[in-house]
């Protein structure tokens, strides 16, 4: 494809969008990517989508109620995350940004673990090795290099694990992402670059990041790029499985551009009414990632109202658990500041901890200053 037009039009057109389930819930075939699904699997996918959205909504509410300092909502991106998350095997690693709540869900990470950093009780805090889900990365694009290095390690170990590196349209401008493409390419590393193009990097549209569709960047680095309907969970699942399979077979990296839309604000601190029009949101609402799965299930008569009610009830249960869990999340002990700064300790950290403890003790119990020490 040639790009003859100046900046702006290249991404407005929607070229070569892989789709298996239309916004109306109609199952369609694609010449390159196919997918076999059972009704049971589809119901399970639907359940994931609904629970993830409900969790996300609850987190937004918790921020509004002052229980979280900030929340980065994934609203609208559920299919991109659940599809790519479910495509992974347990041995595969995911390297997320700070918005991959749906991927975390699919990897089996307790949603409560994701909320600690947004409440301000830790900077992540879960054990990445437990579910092969790395800590959230806030500085844009850095994690794509970690993912690539990890994948280089897989090659050295000779196993058939693979890695998914998550990033967004904004990150595609970062040097680190382009360096990750280079390293992954020349070392033929088993890493899938999964770009959720949600159209907006806070207030900047994709046109501010690129003049070509993002998936086409892969060609310059020597590996395939595919643009998939990011609101079509089945297409995302199929394309991610394909990319992971190639990676496992020693065929190297691939870039997936999941074409989707950030339905909400960048974070709870953002106000998208300042930079985008309401019509755009309305247009994308018609492409909702969950509604189309529901429509498909109904159309095929693979789920009844009892099922949908049960999923809704379960999502309310999840929301309740999250709400209570967040409210009961204890503030860290003040001396935790000094913990884990180093693996093998550091004389100055020890000295300053002792200074703080003595200082705190000088209040002689008149104030709470942590426990024990």
């Amino acid at each position: 494809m040639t790009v003859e037009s100046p900046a702006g039009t290249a991404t407005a057109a929607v070229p070569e969008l892989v789709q298996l389930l239309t916004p109306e819930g109609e199952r369609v075939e694609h010449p390159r990517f196919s997918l076999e699904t059972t009704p049971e699997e589809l119901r399970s996918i639907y359940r994931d989508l609904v629970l993830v959205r409900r969790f996300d909504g609850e987190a937004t509410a918790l921020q509004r109620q002052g229980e979280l300092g900030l929340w980065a909502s994934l609203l609208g991106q559920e299919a991109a995350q659940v599809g790519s998350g479910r495509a992974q095997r347990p041995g595969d690693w995911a390297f997320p940004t700070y918005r991959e709540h749906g991927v975390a869900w699919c990897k089996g990470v307790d949603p409560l673990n994701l909320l600690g950093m947004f409440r301000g009780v830790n900077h992540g805090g879960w054990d990445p090795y437990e579910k092969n889900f790395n800590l959230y990365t806030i500085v844009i694009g850095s994690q794509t290099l970690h993912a690539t290095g990890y994948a280089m390690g897989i090659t050295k170990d000779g196993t058939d694990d693979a890695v998914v590196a998550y990033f967004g349209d904004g990150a595609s401008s970062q040097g680190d992402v382009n360096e990750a493409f280079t390293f992954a390419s020349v070392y033929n590393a088993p890493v899938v670059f999964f770009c959720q193009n949600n159209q907006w990097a806070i207030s900047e549209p994709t046109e501010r990041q690129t003049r070509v569709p993002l998936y086409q960047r892969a060609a310059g680095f020597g590996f395939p790029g595919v643009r998939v309907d990011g609101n079509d969970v089945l297409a995302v699942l199929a394309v991610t499985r394909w990319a992971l399979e190639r990676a496992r077979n020693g065929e190297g990296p691939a870039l997936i551009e999941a074409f989707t839309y950030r339905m909400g604000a960048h974070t709870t601190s953002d106000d998208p009414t300042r930079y985008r029009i309401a019509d755009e949101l309305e247009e994308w609402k018609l492409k909702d990632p969950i509604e189309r799965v529901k429509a498909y299930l109904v159309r095929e008569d693979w789920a009844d109202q009892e099922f949908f009610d049960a999923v809704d009830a379960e999502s309310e249960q999840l929301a309740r658990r999250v709400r209570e869990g967040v409210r009961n999340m204890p503030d860290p002990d003040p001396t935790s500041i000094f913990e884990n700064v180093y693996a093998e300790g550091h004389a100055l950290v020890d000295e300053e901890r002792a200074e703080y403890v003595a200082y705190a003790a000088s209040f002689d119990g008149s104030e709470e200053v942590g426990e024990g020490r």
Partner: protein
Amino acid sequence: MAAENYSMVKALNEALRRSLEADPKTLVMGEDVGRLGGVFRVTDGLHKDFGDARVIDTPLAESGIMGTAIGLALRGYRPVVEIQFDGFVYPAFDQIVTQLAKMHARSLGHVKLPITVRIPFGGGIGAVEHHSESHEAYFAHTAGLKVVSPSNPADAHWMLRQAIASDDPVIFLEPKRRYWDKGVVDPLGEAALPLHAARVARPGKDLTLVAYGPMVKVCLEAAEAAAEDGHQIEVVDLRSLSPVDFDALEASVKRTGRAVVVHEAPVFMGMGAELAARITERCFYSLEAPVLRVGGYFAPYPPSRVEETYLPDLDRVLDAVDRALAF
């Protein structure tokens, strides 16, 4: 192989070789570290003996080197990264400060990143721009990193082996103007000191010269010259810049009552500022003079034809010694 006279380059090379032998997870990676053996030949012969999988020529992208090293460490590897020259580390600065330094704390100790970052640093070799910088303060200012700098071949050898064995990220600053200095190294022996201990390089009772890396030699020469004037100058080789062995420093300055800190980096906000403050806090009643500092000027590192003006030398160190003694 018994004790031999090694250049610092060979001492480092032997340390890398022994570390690669000791642990199959240890990797050497960087620009031109493979067939070329590094621009200073510190990795000479390693690619031939350990192969592509262990000694890795990387694309020319420092952030990429650092970021992929972090990923490899997450996978259980122990990368030893070479940054080709001091001035080329800044593209990797974000990965070092934002990612490498913080991962252990933010993962509550679940993730260890045992990465050693070797950087030839400092001036005095007549190099072009960006090849003579002293950026130790940036790294020492960052919690989560350890920072060391050897001054002689034996320390270079053992400190590198210790740094690689450490589970913490270590910024390993190699004084490139001392690369060709010789010293006795016995790779079959054992380290004389823990990695983060300072060392009295020359005992004395009248004043303590505090230095590390390339400036230790200059300070030893200054102490020798001062001895001719009847002054017994102690030289403390700091070796570790984070953590600093403040106990050793305190013991020395309490004995001598005077201290002069010497480094190539600009005096302003340099290591010397922190060292002077700590010495003053710990040794206030023992001090006969304010702690003085000798270092680079607050100007970009100059073209090589005038670098001698910028770098502390024997005369500038002795000038500070005289001023301190005159108080």
